[in-house]
């Protein structure tokens, strides 16, 4: 590494030294860009001197300055998202300034004309690949906290799932389906050119088989980035676009660009503030005190048929349900106790500006959001400085530096431990609605929160102890920075070298006091863990762009990049504290500790890359891309891999036969084919290991070693081969724009953790085997329903629709295997997710129910088929007809992959008012509602939603009930069946915003002022019975769509203002 840094310095020095030589006659172009209708200045318009690398962007006043423009006649273009681009010719005179003004008409909303692609940006018209973009204002509106939310419902082909709706909680994004059975299948995120990784190992799981108190809460790696800093988001989808990221491009690439100051722009200050309130959208109707007592009594009666044994009213001096109602009313509604209306505040202060030689953007932001569950919250503060400077006519320097710190107060909303540590949300439903004293009158007058020991034994601690007494804090400190130097060697050639860095430290401190299950047996449990991640990237790129005659143009980029990354983690666990007062702050107060655990990972990636874009008469465009990646993660025989793609676009509109058809503004056909890869494994997977372990001999712990893993010297990346056919159409003066894509992705050499026969003594080994396909189409259309011509009202509609079919073609030598189980205890010990050729990743495997046994006659007639048949239990289908219910009767009973996802945005402007609304939907997918595994036990062991009580079968009182009979002996469902699945389709009014632009004269000294009201998750239409159909407890792609009692989505109302001075 040392030698290479030197090379980098020498390289930079050489360029700086040669700067003085670069002199050529140039002039300056200045001007302003205005809205053609309102005459308001338009900011952030990209102004380009066509066929040169010269670009500038307009400031708040709509002004721009282009310096060092070669003399002669130049064509200048002005492009901005939402406007129809315009071009003008101008004559540049050496040493003089010439003025060009533009008036841009509004256009459709979703097609920005410049898109950020890997290692550069391109005019959209020159694109041969499938690249979707998110309008910047959409980012500000919908991304309450995290920028991934901005992708939801707005981008065709990107499926965004909010796994845990806690503030700062994890969000998963999938571009064009899941390609791999391992890992999380997340796209590669690139922020200002720096690929962003997340800590390799962030939390430590205890054992493979037992409940782990440390693993469930995952957080969102990008939650440290403030949405207000985002300039644009572009998603690279097909091979032509992603192959430039080689072995990491297969899941798509999300390019995030942050705001920068514009050259020549007068200094300005922008201040944004918003404040809001959020609350949980839905509360489940659970049994009140009286009905709960009736339910528990019924569960006992149906077993013992002895009224003296009934817990409420039967046993001596116990209270009857009616007496309970008289004394306690409805009892405790734990949901109301843990949910709250939570406040949030968001500030941003930005200083931007520039002079003739550079620009600056310095921003600060602070967000403080309380969670809708007591005890949870998220706060984030950050400072960003993006600077650009032209050193001389040859050299340009730009830097960006972003430092953020976030602090999440976590609550254990869901858990894989099914019984006593099941999570706050689950226990808010299941915990007894009766006050402690109802079970034990000696508790009267003591701490109202003190559990009766009987309750503690059955349910664990009450939910308020988890919200108020358990401490779990996650702090993330992140710095992303980079230094980029560009040398304009000649007008055609430029060279860029950069060094980027990315640092993250994540710390999780938790403390479970002795009042809750986790800390009860151990006199307090403190877990303090941390992980650290450092990533350095060096890029060296040579660019070429030149027109040959009027017909040919070549733009090319090529170079070498090197990335080095190291992550390490530590976990400390201490128990036996003298008291709970200090929590996890002073670990040495605890008298018993687990040996600390640590780990270190290092990986390296060296790459050569090149892309050539050739266009002929602006009519035919060909893009060829190649990248050669050498990754340390892969085995000795497969360190290097080359990925390439070819894209062709035909701008049919430029053809003579279409040029004169007025109705068609633009028409382009795109075809691309190529490969990208996925290195979705951790480092070192190809190597055999000798691992240290400890073992007990006699009563002594002694050290030992195991040969822990099989070596696989042939391990390599997964390869995704993708073909894409696309159409871009603009019609009627661009009032309608349509982008349609059809694709087929075939991923082979699947990086699979192949389950070996356990009799080999190895649980699994990582192999390349198997094949997965994703086929689908995407449609994005924008329609300007009302044009807004003449300053009148305008109405823009933007719609997208995606359809994807995922299928496992083969698993290599394995016939089928199952993903991990749902949880431990509480009846969650199922592995319902199957991986099997012919089925999608996310298929659910189990028995089919066929109603319930309503008479003893039905039971007797079926006992030979189902020996455990009982009155009031589920009857299972003998699918294979062999007369016995066995494992062979399991079949695919659900699929978590949605068949369609869609979004529809409407924007209306009337005078100074603007209104936008986003509706989105997910159609035809399954949710595995693990709560039903518990509710449908109907055994009186804890509260349940009223639905299950009211509709439980009873041979006398409810012979047509659709749920099993209430029965105190039922402990766990022995078979996983379709009874635990639900339809997860939904339609949601995701976002509504109403804004008002204050007249400039109203506030003195303020250039522009806008106030707005915003609402998120306003309304949802779904048949899903849980809190929210947008749920996915596990980040593992093979186990999506599971509701484990996750943090419910909140409805957020906020009001804000945006001022520019």
């Amino acid at each position: 590494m040392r030698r290479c840094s030197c090379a980098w310095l020498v390289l930079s020095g050489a360029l700086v030294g040669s700067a003085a030589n670069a002199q050529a006659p140039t002039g300056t172009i200045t001007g302003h860009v205005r809205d053609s209708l309102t005459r308001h200045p338009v900011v952030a318009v990209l102004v380009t001197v066509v066929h040169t690398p010269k670009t500038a962007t307009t400031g708040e006043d709509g002004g721009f300055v282009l310096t060092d423009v070669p003399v002669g006649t130049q064509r200048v273009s002005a492009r901005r998202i939402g406007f129809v681009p315009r071009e003008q010719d101008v004559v540049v005179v050496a040493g003089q300034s010439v003025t060009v003004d533009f008036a841009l008409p509004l256009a459709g909303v979703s097609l920005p004309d410049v898109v950020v692609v890997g290692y550069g940006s391109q005019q959209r018209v020159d694109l041969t690949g499938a690249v979707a973009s998110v309008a910047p204002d959409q980012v500000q509106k919908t991304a309450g906290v995290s920028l991934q939310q901005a992708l939801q419902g707005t981008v065709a082909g990107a499926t965004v799932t909010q796994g845990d709706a806690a503030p700062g909680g994890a969000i998963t994004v999938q571009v064009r389906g899941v390609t791999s059975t391992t890992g999380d299948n997340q796209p590669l995120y690139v922020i200002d050119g720096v690929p962003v990784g997340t800590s390799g190992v962030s939390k430590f799981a205890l054992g493979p088989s037992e409940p782990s108190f440390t693993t469930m809460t995952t957080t969102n790696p990008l939650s440290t980035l403030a949405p207000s800093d985002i300039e644009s988001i572009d998603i690279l989808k097909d091979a032509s676009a992603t192959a430039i990221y080689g072995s990491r491009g297969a899941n798509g690439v999300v390019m995030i660009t942050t705001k920068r100051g514009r050259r020549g722009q007068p200094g300005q200050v922008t201040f944004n503030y918003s404040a809001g309130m959020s609350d949980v959208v839905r509360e489940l109707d659970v049994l009140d005190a009286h009905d709960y007592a009736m339910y528990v009594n019924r569960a006992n009666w149906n077993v013992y048929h002895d009224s003296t044994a009934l817990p409420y009213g039967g046993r001596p001096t116990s209270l009857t349900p009616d007496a309970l109602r008289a004394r306690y009313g409805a009892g405790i509604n734990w949901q109301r106790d843990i949910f709250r209306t939570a406040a949030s505040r968001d500030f941003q202060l930005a200083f931007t500006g520039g002079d003739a030689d550079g620009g600056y953007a310095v921003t600060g932001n602070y967000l403080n959001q309380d969670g809708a569950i007591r005890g949870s919250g998220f706060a984030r503060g950050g400072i960003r400085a993006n600077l650009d400077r032209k050193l001389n006519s040859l050299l340009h320097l730009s830097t960006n530096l972003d430092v953020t710190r976030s602090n999440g107060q976590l609550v254990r909303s869901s858990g894989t431990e099914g019984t006593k540590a099941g999570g706050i949300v689950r226990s808010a439903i299941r915990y007894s609605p009766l006050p402690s004293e109802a079970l034990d009158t000696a508790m009267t007058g003591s701490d109202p929160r003190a559990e009766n020991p009987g309750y503690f034994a059955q349910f664990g601690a009450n939910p308020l102890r988890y919200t108020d007494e358990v401490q779990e804090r996650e702090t993330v400190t992140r710095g992303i920075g980079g230094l980029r130097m560009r040398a304009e060697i000649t007008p055609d050639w430029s060279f860029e070298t950069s060094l980027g860095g990315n640092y993250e430290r994540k710390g999780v401190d938790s403390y479970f006091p002795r009042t809750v299950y986790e800390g009860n047996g151990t006199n307090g449990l403190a877990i303090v863990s941390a992980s650290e991640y450092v990533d350095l990237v060096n890029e060296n790129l040579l660019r070429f762009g030149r027109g040959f005659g009027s017909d040919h143009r070549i733009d090319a980029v090529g170079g070498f990049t090197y990335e080095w990354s190291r992550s390490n983690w530590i976990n400390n666990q201490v128990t036996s504290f003298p008291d709970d007062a200090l929590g996890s702050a002073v670990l040495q107060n605890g008298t018993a500790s687990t040996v600390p655990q640590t780990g270190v990972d290092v990986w390296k990636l060296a790459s050569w890359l090149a892309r050539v874009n050739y266009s002929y008469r602006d009519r035919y465009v060909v893009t060829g891309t190649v990248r050669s990646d050498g990754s340390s993660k892969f085995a000795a025989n497969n360190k290097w891999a080359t990925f390439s793609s070819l894209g062709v676009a035909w701008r049919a509109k430029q053809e003579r036969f279409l040029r004169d058809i007025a109705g068609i503004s633009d028409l382009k056909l795109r075809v691309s084919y190529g490969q990208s890869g996925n290195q979705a494994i951790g480092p070192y997977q190809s190597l055999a290991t000798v691992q240290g372990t400890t073992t007990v001999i006699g009563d002594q712990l002694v050290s030992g070693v195991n040969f822990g893993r099989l070596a696989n010297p042939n391990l390599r990346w997964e390869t995704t081969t993708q073909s894409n056919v696309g159409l871009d159409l603009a019609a009627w003066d661009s009032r309608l724009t349509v982008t349609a894509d059809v694709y087929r992705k075939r991923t082979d050499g699947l990086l699979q953790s192949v389950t070996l026969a356990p009799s080999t003594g190895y649980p699994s080994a990582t192999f390349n085997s198997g094949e997965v396909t994703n086929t689908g189409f995407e449609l994005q259309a924008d329609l300007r329903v009302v044009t807004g011509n003449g300053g009148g009202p305008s109405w823009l509609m933007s719609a997208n629709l995606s359809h994807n079919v995922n299928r496992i073609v083969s698993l290599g030598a394995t016939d089928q295997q199952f993903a991990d189980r749902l949880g431990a205890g509480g009846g969650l010990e199922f592995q319902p997710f199957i991986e099997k050729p012919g089925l999608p990743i996310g298929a659910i495997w189990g028995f089919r129910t066929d109603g319930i046994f309503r008479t003893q006659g039905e039971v007797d007639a079926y006992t030979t088929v189902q020996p455990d048949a009982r009155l009031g239990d589920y009857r299972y289908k003998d699918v294979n007809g062999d007369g016995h219910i066995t494992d062979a009767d399991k079949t695919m009973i659900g699929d978590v992959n949605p068949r369609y996802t869609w979004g529809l945005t409407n924007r209306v402007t009337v005078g100074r008012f603007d209104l936008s609304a986003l509706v989105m939907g997910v159609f035809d997918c399954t949710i595995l509602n693990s709560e039903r595994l518990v509710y449908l036990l109907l055994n009186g062991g804890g509260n349940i939603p009223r639905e299950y009580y009211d509709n439980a079968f009873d041979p006398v009182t409810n012979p047509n009930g659709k749920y099993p009979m209430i029965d105190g002996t039922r402990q766990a469902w022995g078979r996983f069946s379709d009874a635990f699945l639900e339809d997860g389709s939904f339609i949601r009014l995701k976002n509504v915003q109403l804004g008002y632009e204050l007249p400039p004269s109203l506030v003195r000294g303020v250039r522009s002022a806008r106030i707005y009201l915003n609402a998120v998750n306003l309304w949802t239409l779904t048949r899903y019975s849980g809190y929210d159909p947008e749920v996915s407890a596990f980040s593992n792609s093979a186990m999506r769509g599971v509701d484990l009692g996750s943090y419910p989505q909140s409805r957020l109302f906020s009001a804000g203002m945006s001022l520019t001075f």
Partner: protein
Amino acid sequence: MIGMKQTLIRVLVPVCLLAGAGACHDLVNLDEQPLTFIDPANFFKTAPQAIEAVNGMYAPLMTWDDWISPAWRDVACEEPDVYCPGWAPTFGYRGANPGAWFAGRTWTSNFLVVRLANDVLGQLDRVTFDTTLTGRLRGEAHFLRGYAYFELVRRYGAVPLRLKPYQPDGTYGDAPRAPLEAVYASIVSDLKAAALELPADFASKTYTSADRGRPTAPSAWGLLSKVYLTMAGADVAGTPLAALKAAYNDSARMAAQQVMQSGWVALEPTYMRLFDWQQQTNSNEILFQIGATHRENTGSEVGTFYNPPDYSTVGGGGGGVMSMRKVFYETFEPNDRRVAPGQAIFAAWRRSGSSSDPGTPTWLNRSVPDSVTAKLATATQVGWAWLGDDHCDTVGWSRYHLADSSFLELSPQLYTMKYIDRTALTKSQNANHAIVLRHADVLLVFAEAENEVHGPTAAAYDAINQVRNRAGLPNLTASLSQTQFRDAVWMERRHELYAEFQGWFDLKRQGRWLGIMNDQLPAYPGSPTPSASICQQGRQAYQLLLPIPASELGANRLITQNPGY
């Protein structure tokens, strides 16, 4: 304008630098240097490394795949003497379908032991240091592999025989079942090799007192005697082994004699000392034990099922699940120390003034005193289980709030005190060792085998009487018939080894399991009729073997499921 030459230079300089950077040696060196594990090529070079690798073989035994939980749980409820509440057999391991996660955890862990032993034996073949040490290490590996296969064959029947380190192959580990007789032959061969190579005691062949806990030659002989006895039993019906019943009984007898003649293996003077976790390591009675400590995940959670309620950890909690059946309790002879109240068996009530003052336990003699019953008439129950007459439905503490504001807590069940460690912080920190084989077991194996070969000889009487006398009982009635003696040994095994997970294997070996679990045979010798309902689901013939786990079926295309599943 810039000259052509200048342009060329300007372009070439960065291109060359670019090429130079790419060629930079450090950059393109993409080899991985592991930081958290050792390259196997650099291991097994020294004696300490060889010992570490051997130590590693023991590690899977006390894990969540083995003795912490499932290795005892999948057999615990398969005998009539233990009361398992309704959910334990169904929620636990019996009748489990092969896809359930817990089915086959012991399959996985024992095959892991097999694999690690194969790795060690494979490596030991290559090294040349100290042959005394390598012999002993080889002995440990043979012993563990024999133990693991014995655990497997008794649970699953014929299993694949893997006696070489596994190398990745195109089939991901396909292997057919070996014939049952081949599996037993391998176990015998391993244990014989272990018996010859292992040190005779903890003062020979590199063993010192610090090696207490490792197997010795008597451990191998003792386990071998049990293997032979099993080979003479019903497990091998229908195989060529069945024809050699007499020979295997004789072999069992002689192997057990090797232990009895070892000179140092002896019964503990008092029965419950065996289960004192602080004494177990140095016990001369325990022939093989799987160690446990107070460190998390190194202790069995067996106590949280068998202990009296609230006896499992420092903070209380756990326990109160499995208890001794009343009808079985009544088969113990008077003054049998193995059911001494408060020492070996626990049942109590305690009274306290408040919920925070636990009160002092007072012993019950299997029934609630009248004085207590009278108070209960006006009491409010505040605990969850309630007192019932049916011994099948009574479990756990019952907590009553009495009219005078005090509490009464009842534990009418009979809980064994074999697994108590009240200093454990959590359930997986219980320092009670898992006793796999102890001398009393070997003595009873000898008595049983001797009786089969020669009838109830003086030697057979002497062996069983050693066990009885230690329990405070007189010698067994003289002049029993061979059948009577056989039943007496069986009864003694049940009394001596209660809750030590031998019941299912004993009953299967004797061919009695199905009949007893379905109430078709007298559960207790001398009782003329089948026992009262044992409150458990009936068992079927196919359940003589556990299901081959789905994970094996899914990955090993040459394996077949046990019939009936």
